[in-house]
């Protein structure tokens, strides 16, 4: 029996679904080339859903639909993050698509469905709901990448993303089937208890490996990272921005649900695997990023390196370690969104400014935007007082507390390598002469949003206490 309370647990999701469908219909009847109505409705949906999520956030963890759906503190925080990031992403994208004449209402509808997928993934508590959310998210993203039909690069990226993504989903399903075979349940909580009694079963480790491959693919960790640079580079920048920010939060949630909530008894097995994934990601991401000339590709490799860092918190295997990863993923999403927004801003009609050299002399052309980019880059490099430093700090602290001092030393070593390509961007902006002296054109909203985005990293970097406390409290009470 479906009860009201159970339905209320996922009222935000239901609202989002309704609105997305409604917007799809409204959009068909719209002739407005700038899609004002569609855009406004989408943003409104995000705001209202955010309000719903916060209003309905339970004091204690709530389970629904036969324990296949969960609503807890982590879900509330991550969903709020997803909406905030989605709001900014839509704002940046609207400008970008309008400028390039690629604007279609479907972009926002697909975006909303992707966000719905993220919400489901964040709240999923059985293998089935995890898969449902994941596919809803992925399929929407594949379509978004391919939206710019005339671009061969985008089509190629979409194809690659789809084929590799489908393979990863297959792996994930295969792993899930093995886990199901051993434990006889799809619910994560039951799986965890059943594994306790049968922990030595070799099939479980097999299943774990395949599930981990699926997670690593979605996060983009080495050696399952091949799609990341191509998709980031090939997609229209606003789609890259969308892919590079909020889905990481969902993928993180998936990792927590599957590995921590479901497979925690196997922690000693997945810990070792994550060590390898993380080291490889940090090494490859940071080293290969140095040789990139395309900023989108560079940011893609930087994303891989950041994921490596994020995994460090997970592998520490403690609730506060997960909180560290959560803090990291939120910070990373904020930074990566800002960086791609800068790439959008540099572009003009029919011209994507995705080469590093396009940043040359930006400090003289537009000092304010150059300053924002400086904050973003130093923050990504992990230099205080910006927020990126605290993210690294938190993860490293948990790692050291868990006894992995050598791993922390390796991580900081790789982050020095990483610092090089971030400060190279600053070098281009501040030390090199510009080819043209025209200031960047930016609409008021774009200027405002980007300024908030950048300054948030500075202000939260000076006062990180509240955000740190939230992450700690939701993760330590939940698990």
């Amino acid at each position, binding site marked *: 029996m479906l009860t009201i309370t159970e339905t209320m647990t996922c009222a935000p999701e239901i609202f989002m679904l309704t609105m997305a469908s409604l917007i799809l219909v409204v959009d068909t009847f719209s002739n407005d080339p700038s899609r004002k109505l569609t855009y406004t409705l989408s943003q409104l949906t995000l705001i209202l859903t955010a309000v719903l999520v916060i209003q309905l956030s339970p004091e204690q963890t709530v389970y629904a639909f036969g324990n296949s759906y969960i609503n807890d503190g982590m879900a509330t925080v991550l969903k709020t993050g997803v909406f905030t990031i989605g709001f900014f992403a839509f704002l940046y994208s609207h400008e970008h698509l309008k400028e390039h004449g690629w604007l279609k209402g479907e972009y926002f509808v697909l975006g909303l469905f992707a966000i719905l997928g993220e919400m489901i993934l964040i709240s999923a508590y059985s293998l089935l709901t995890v898969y449902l959310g994941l596919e809803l998210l992925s399929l929407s993203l594949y379509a978004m990448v391919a939206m710019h039909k005339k671009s061969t690069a985008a089509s190629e990226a979409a194809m690659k993303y789809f084929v590799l993504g489908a393979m990863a989903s297959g792996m994930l399903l295969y792993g899930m089937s093995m886990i199901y075979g051993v434990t006889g349940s799809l619910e994560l909580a039951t799986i965890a208890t059943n594994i306790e009694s049968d922990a030595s079963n070799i099939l479980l480790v097999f299943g774990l490996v395949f599930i981990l491959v699926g997670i690593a693919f979605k996060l983009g960790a080495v050696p399952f990272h091949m799609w990341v640079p191509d998709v980031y580079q090939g997609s229209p920048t606003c789609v890259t921005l969308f892919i590079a920010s909020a889905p990481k939060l969902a993928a993180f949630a998936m990792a927590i649900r599957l590995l921590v909530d479901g497979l925690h008894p196997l922690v000693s097995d997945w810990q070792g695997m994550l060590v390898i994934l993380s080291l490889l990601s940090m090494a490859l991401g940071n080293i290969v990023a140095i040789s990139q000339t395309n900023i989108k590709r560079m940011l893609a490799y930087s994303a891989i390196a950041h994921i490596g860092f994020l995994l460090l918190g997970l592998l520490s295997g403690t609730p506060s370690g997960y909180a560290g990863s959560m803090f990291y993923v939120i910070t990373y999403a904020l930074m990566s969104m800002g960086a791609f927004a800068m790439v959008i801003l540099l572009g003009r009609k029919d011209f994507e400014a995705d080469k590093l050299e396009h940043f040359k002399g930006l400090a003289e052309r537009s000092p304010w935007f150059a300053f924002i980019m400086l904050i973003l880059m130093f923050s990504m490099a992990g230099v205080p007082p910006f927020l990126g*430093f605290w993210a690294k700090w938190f993860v490293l*602290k948990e790692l050291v507390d868990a006894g992995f001092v050598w791993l922390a030393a390796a991580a900081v070593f790789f982050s020095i390598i990483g*610092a*090089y390509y971030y*400060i190279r961007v600053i070098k281009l902006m501040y030390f090199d002469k510009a080819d043209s002296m025209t200031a960047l054109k930016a609409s008021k909203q774009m200027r405002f949003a980007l300024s908030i985005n950048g300054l948030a990293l500075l202000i939260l970097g000076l006062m990180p206490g509240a955000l*740190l*406390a939230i992450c700690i409290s939701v993760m330590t009470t939940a698990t």
Partner: protein
Amino acid sequence: MFTELPILSLLIWGPILGGIWVLYAGDRQEETVKTLALMISVVTFLLSILLYKNFDITTHEMQFVEFSYWIETFNINYYLGIDGIAMPLIILTTFMTVLVILAAWEVIEKRISQYLAAFLIMEGLMNGVFSSVDAILFYVFWEAMLIPMFLIIGIWGGPKRVYATIKFFLYTFLGSVFMLVAFLYLYSQSGTFNILELHNLSLDLGAQKLIFIAFFLAFAVKIPMWPVHTWLPDAHVEAPTGGSVILAAIMLKLGGYGFLRFSLPITPDASMYFDSAMIVLSLIAIVYIGFVALVQQDMKKLIAYSSISHMGFATLGFFVGFSIYAATGSTEGAVFALEGGMIQMVSHGFISGALFLCVGVMYERVHSREIKDYGGVVNTMPHFAAFMMLFAMANSGLPGTSGFVGEFVVILSSYQANFWIAFLAALTLILGAAYTLWMYKRVIFGDVANDNIAELKDINSREAFILSMLAIAVLIFGVYPGPLFDAMHPTLEHLFEHIMQSKVGL
């Protein structure tokens, strides 16, 4: 009357906010911006004088303490306080910043407001480093300081500025991140980032050694010690005059300060274990780098190498204490050596700053730093030559100047440890005189070398004011260093007593 003021916070945030104000004012009205920046730095300097006036020289405890919670979840606090080793360095910082801003007056032509703002912000951050009593607060200031310096060298520097500044950034970043890991390890052992509590944390020797090495990476790069000094000549040569001055006068001191604040008291047993290695590295810096300085063609490079050599005295003074204690059994000699190291740091701040300013004065007129482009400057710039004479003498350690006091004290006390240490260290009196005075002779004396020199104009009143301020400082501390010794003595005495107690199995 001023004791209730949160002076340390004002010294940190005043210049930072002032810098933002200067940035906001922009380049439109150049004169206003310059005056504004100068006012801010002068007010900051006057505030720091209050520190000295109200400083209690009878105690080693932290003074002017300010405390408020910052990140309560992790027990990270906004905890400020200074003792006898931080106070002189803060005053040095505020003093040099005033001069650097004055020195920029007619020299910097592009983006003047950003230039001045960068120095003001950096002043605040450096004061923050010296007054932090919380390790993470310290780290935040320590790293944030790299950002303005990175921009100063990169934007206003010489032809190879980009290479130099990236090298500077990565080198110092490399050292510092391992220090962060060490802090995190200490936190996992003790649950606190409070430096004073970390001083009393019990650690076994193995852990101490690793922590010492992590700290060493951070501080040895900064100070810099041989063999991790190679960023310094590049950064100095390419930095604008103001950047070189701050780099030499204050940034290098941060490394020495770090040794006194972290390495020695937190890992005393490891410091004792590694002390001979540290002494050897210091002696290599003093002697070998002295020879390297001798062959330099570029004046700024020569002064840069001379800085490394002089900072070798500071590290020698900090680490020779163990052997002195072992040889004599009294703490007095060891404390004297520590004091010598500190005096050397302060005095080197004045002297190296002054020499870089002198080179800056010539560079503005001739646009060359090569020694061979000069000769006979005394004929056209007699006043300048007189000032430079004083600073060159101070650099070679002439009695009566501050350069003599630090070196003499360190040599004297290391004699108690071992004759050969003192002998090798004393070689600097020959080497220092050789490279400094030889450069002085080639640049200043002789016939007028070329037309550029013939057309030189002597220093104007602004430059004369800057140089005479420094000259006064050099002479005062040379003749009467007493107040400086008094201020530092209780702190360093307590420090040495502290580090003589083993922390293994405490």
